[in-house]
C-alpha cells in the first residue's frame, strides 16, 4: 500500500524535491500546502488532505525525474491542473506529492493545415481557443469552467460540457499523448511521429488515459484535433412554466432532425441565480428555461434557429432568439457561471458540489427531473438543476447552509439518493466530472466484474500504487 511519503520522511522528501526543482517551484510551508488541500468538492472542504510537498514542474524531464524518485521511494503523487474538479480527484487524500501542472502552459504547435494543436497540460481551455481563433480553428468541447480549467485536467477526466450534444467529449479530439509513467518512463501514445487524424494501430493506449484521473501516469503533452470555427451562431432561449415541457421540447427538436451545438437547461432556482449574478440578463423567472445553441453557416443557423423557435413555442410561454454577439455572450457566460452562482438561489446559503453530475438516458430525463425534485423535498433540501439536457447530463446542486450540520447531512443523503436514481434508471453516476474520491463507493455497483479488469490494468501500469492513490478504487492500494 502506497501512502504519503512512502519510505522517506516528509523532511527528506522536501529536501530532495528542492534539489530537483529549486526553491521557486517547490512549496513546503504550511501556508502554501493548505492551499492545495481542496478542489471544488465539498468533501475536500470538510477533510484535511494536506500534502507533504507541492511541486511545479515545467518539463517532461522534470516530471520524469520526480516520478523516478517517487517510484524508488514509494511516494504518492497526485497530478493537478487548476483544481477546478468536483470529485477530490486532484487532492492528495493519501498525502505525498501534489504535482501542480497548471504553470506549464505552452501551446507548442498549431498546425493549421492538418487542423491540430500540441499543448502542455497547463494550457487553459479558453486561452487555447482564443489563441487558435486567429487560425480559424477551435476546440469544441466547452466546460463551464472554460476560462480556468486546464487541457490536462480535461483529458484526465475526459471532460465535455456545454457542446457535448453535437461535439462529444474531450476524448474524441485527443490524437495522442505524451505520458510519464509511474516509474518515470516517457511514452507517446497514438504513434511517435503520427499526425494522422485516424489510427487503429495497436491497442488504444490514448483511450486508456482518458478519464484515468491521474491514476495511471502524468499527462505531459496533448495532441488535439481541432475543427474549423463555424462562421455563425445563434441562441434560442425558451421559457417554460413546467419543467417536463422543457424536457419534451428537447426531444421534439431532435425529432425534427436538428442537432443543436448546445442544449442547456436551467430550472427555476438556476434562473433566479443567474439573474442575481447578471441582472442585465433579465431572464423570465419561470419553472425552466432551455438554451438551444446552433452554429454553422449563416443560412443554416438562421433556418435552424427559426425551426427551434417554432417547435419550442408549442410548449413554452415565451421564446427569445439571440444573434447579437453581446447578448449571446451574456447568455452563455451566465449559463457557464451557474455552477458556483447557484448558491444565490437561497439567501445565506452556499452551493455544495456533491452528487452533481448524473447522466440519464434521454428517454428518462423528464422522469429523472421530477424525481430529483422529489428527493430534494423528501430531505428538505433545495436542489437547483441545470446542465446538458441535450445529452441527459444533469448537474444537481444542493443549496444549504454548510455551517449547519443537519443541513450538511441532509445534502449528503440527497447526493446518495441522486446517484442511486441514476443507477436505478439506467444512467451513469458521472457524465463528465469523474469518479475521484467522492464516487469511488459506487464503482462496484456500477461496473460489476468490469471493475476487477480496471483494477488489473491499474496494477499492471502502476504496480506500486503511487499514482493518485485513493481515487476511483475505494479503500484500495
Amino acid at each position, binding site marked *: 500500500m502506497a501512502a504519503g511519503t512512502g519510505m522517506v520522511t516528509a523532511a527528506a522528501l522536501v529536501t530532495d524535491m528542492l534539489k530537483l526543482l529549486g526553491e521557486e517551484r517547490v*512549496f513546503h*510551508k*504550511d*501556508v*502554501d500546502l*493548505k*492551499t*492545495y*488541500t*481542496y*478542489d*471544488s468538492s465539498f468533501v*475536500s*472542504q470538510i477533510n*484535511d488532505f494536506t500534502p507533504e510537498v*507541492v511541486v*511545479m514542474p515545467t518539463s517532461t524531464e522534470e516530471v520524469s525525474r520526480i516520478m523516478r524518485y517517487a517510484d524508488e521511494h514509494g511516494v504518492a503523487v497526485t497530478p493537478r491542473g*487548476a*483544481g*477546478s474538479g468536483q470529485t477530490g480527484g486532484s487532492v492528495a487524500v493519501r498525502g505525498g506529492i501534489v504535482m*501542480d501542472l*497548471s*504553470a506549464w502552459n505552452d501551446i507548442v504547435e498549431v498546425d493549421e493545415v492538418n487542423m491540430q494543436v500540441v499543448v502542455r497540460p497547463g494550457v*487553459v481551455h479558453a486561452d487555447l481557443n482564443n489563441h487558435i481563433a486567429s487560425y480559424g480553428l477551435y476546440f469544441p468541447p466547452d466546460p463551464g*469552467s472554460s*476560462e*480556468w*480549467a486546464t487541457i490536462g485536467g480535461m483529458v484526465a477526466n475526459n471532460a465535455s460540457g456545454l457542446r457535448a450534444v453535437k461535439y462529444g467529449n474531450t476524448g474524441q479530439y485527443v490524437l495522442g499523448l505524451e505520458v510519464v509513467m509511474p516509474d518515470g518512463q516517457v511514452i507517446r501514445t497514438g504513434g511517435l511521429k503520427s499526425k494522422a487524424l485516424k489510427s487503429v494501430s495497436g491497442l488504444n493506449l490514448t483511450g486508456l488515459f482518458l478519464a484515468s484521473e491521474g491514476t495511471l501516469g502524468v499527462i505531459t503533452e496533448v495532441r488535439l484535433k481541432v475543427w474549423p470555427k463555424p462562421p455563425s451562431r445563434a441562441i434560442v432561449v425558451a421559457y417554460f412554466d413546467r419543467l417536463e415541457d422543457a424536457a419534451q421540447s428537447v426531444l421534439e427538436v431532435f425529432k425534427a432532425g436538428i442537432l443543436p451545438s448546445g442544449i442547456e437547461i436551467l430550472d427555476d432556482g438556476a434562473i433566479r441565480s443567474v439573474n442575481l*449574478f447578471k441582472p442585465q440578463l433579465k431572464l423570465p423567472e419561470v419553472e425552466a428555461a432551455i438554451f438551444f445553441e446552433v452554429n454553422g453557416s449563416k443560412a443554416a443557423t438562421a433556418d435552424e434557429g427559426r425551426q427551434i423557435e417554432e417547435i419550442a413555442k408549442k410548449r413554452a410561454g415565451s421564446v427569445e432568439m439571440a444573434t447579437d454577439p453581446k447578448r449571446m455572450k451574456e447568455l452563455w457566460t451566465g449559463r457557464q*457561471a*451557474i*455552477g*458556483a*452562482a447557484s*448558491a*444565490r438561489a437561497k439567501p*445565506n446559503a*452556499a*452551493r*455544495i*458540489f456533491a452528487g452533481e453530475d448524473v447522466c440519464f438516458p434521454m428517454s428518462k430525463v423528464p422522469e429523472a427531473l421530477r424525481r430529483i425534485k422529489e428527493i430534494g423535498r423528501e430531505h428538505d433540501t433545495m436542489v437547483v438543476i441545470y446542465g446538458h439536457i441535450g445529452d441527459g447530463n444533469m448537474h444537481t446542486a444542493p443549496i444549504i*447552509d*454548510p*455551517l449547519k450540520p443537519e443541513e450538511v447531512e441532509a445534502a449528503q443523503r440527497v447526493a446518495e439518493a441522486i446517484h442511486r436514481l441514476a443507477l436505478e434508471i439506467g444512467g451513469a453516476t458521472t457524465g463528465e466530472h469523474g469518479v475521484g474520491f467522492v464516487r469511488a463507493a459506487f464503482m462496484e455497483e456500477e461496473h460489476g466484474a468490469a471493475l476487477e479488469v480496471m483494477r488489473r490494468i491499474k496494477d499492471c501500469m502502476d504496480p506500486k500504487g503511487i499514482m493518485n492513490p485513493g481515487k476511483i478504487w475505494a479503500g484500495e492500494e
Partner: protein
Amino acid sequence: MEVTYQLDFAQELKKCVRCGKCRTSCPVFHELRGESASPRGRLALVKALQTGDLEPSEELADRLYTCLLCKTCAVDCPSGVISDEIFVAAREYLAEALGQPLMQRALLRGFLTRPGLHSSASSLMRLYQKSGAAAVLDKTHLIEHLPEKAEAAARLLPDVAGRPGRKRVREVTPAQGEKKYRVSYFLGCATNLLYPQVAEDTVEVLSRNGCEVVTVDDVKCCGMPHLAYGDVDTARELARENLRALADAGSDYVISDCASCSATLGETYQHLFDPGTPEQARAKELADTVYDVSRFLVEVTGIEPGEHQVEATVTYHDPCHLSRAQKVTEQPREVLRAVPGVEFREMAEADRCCGSAGSFSVMHHDISAKILERKIDNVEATQSEVVATSCPTCTMQLSFGLRERGSKADVVHPVQLLARSYRGK
C-alpha cells in the same frame, strides 16, 4: 477570529465553493502561479485562520498582503464572495495579532494622519530630488545599495516640484458664471503632494462648470492606506474627522479627483461603523453626495466645452477603485471626448490593474513591475501621446512604466485636458 470590520468571517467564507474562477483574472496569480497567490488560495488561508487550522504568522501575512485589493476577483465571483473585504478584515486581525512592521506603522499613524509631518516628508522628498541625489545615486548605482523598498520608492516617485496643491488653490473659489452648486473639494494626500497641478485643474474645471468650490482645509487622509494595512481603528478615526469636516463645510456635493478617496468616502465609510449608529447614518448621507469629478461633470453639471483645441491622441486607464469599486467607467471617457481636438483611443484590458495599488508597488515592487509590463504593452499598442487616468497612484505607476520604456507619453488626469482646453495651454 469571528467578527471584524463589520464582517462575519464564517458567514462570508462559506460562500466560496472553490470553483477556481478567480484564478482567471487575478493579476498577481498570473505572475506568481502558485495557488497561495490566487484569491481562492488566500480565502482558504483566511478560512484556515478562522477555524484555527493555521495560527497567525508572518508567512500567512505575506500571502494575504500579496494582493492588490483590485476587486477583480470579487466583481467576477459567481458566488458573491467579497474577497477583497475579507482580505482587509483578515489584515486587520493579523495586524493586531502580529503587530505591524515599524516602518508601516510610522508611515500610517504618523505621516498620513498629521498633515504637518506630511509636508515635512514631502519636503525631504523634494530635497532628495532637487539636490540631484537621485541622479547621483542612479548614475553610480548606489541606489542599488539602498534598502530594497526605499530604492523602489525612489524610482517610482514623480518629480515633485513646487508648492503642494493645498497652497495653490483658494479656500473658496467662486463659480465662473452662474453659480449652480456649492461643492466641497476633497483634496487627497497624493494629489496634494505628488500632483498638485491636478488640484489646480480640478478646481478650475469645477469653477468653470458653475460650482463654488470649497477646498476643505482640515480634512485628513481618507483612510484607504490604513485599511489596506489592516489599521481599521485609525481609518475609523480619520473617517470621523472627515465626516465632521465635510459636514461643517455645508456643501451640496463632495468631489474628489482621486479614485481611492471617492471610493473610501462614498463606499467604505458606511462599513466602518456599527449599523444604526449616528456615525453610520452620517456616512450614508455623505455617500449620497460623494462624486468622482468626471462622474460629477457628466451626471450633474454637464460639461462646458473648452474654447481651445488640445491636439492629442489619448487613451484611458481605468483605476480599480473607480471602475470596480464605483462602476464609473464611461464618464471619464466622456470627459475626454468632450475635449476639442482629442482623439480617443481605447486600449485593450483598460480596466486591468496597473499593479500600483497604493504602496503595493513599493512593498512588492517586482510583482508590481511585472503586472505593469502588460499594462504598458497595452498603452503602447494604442500609440497614444497621452494616457489619462483618475488616480494619483495609477498616474505614478504608469509614468514609471513609460519612463522605464523610454516613452515620451504624458500621464494626466482627464480634467487636466479639459482645463487645457479652457486655458489654451
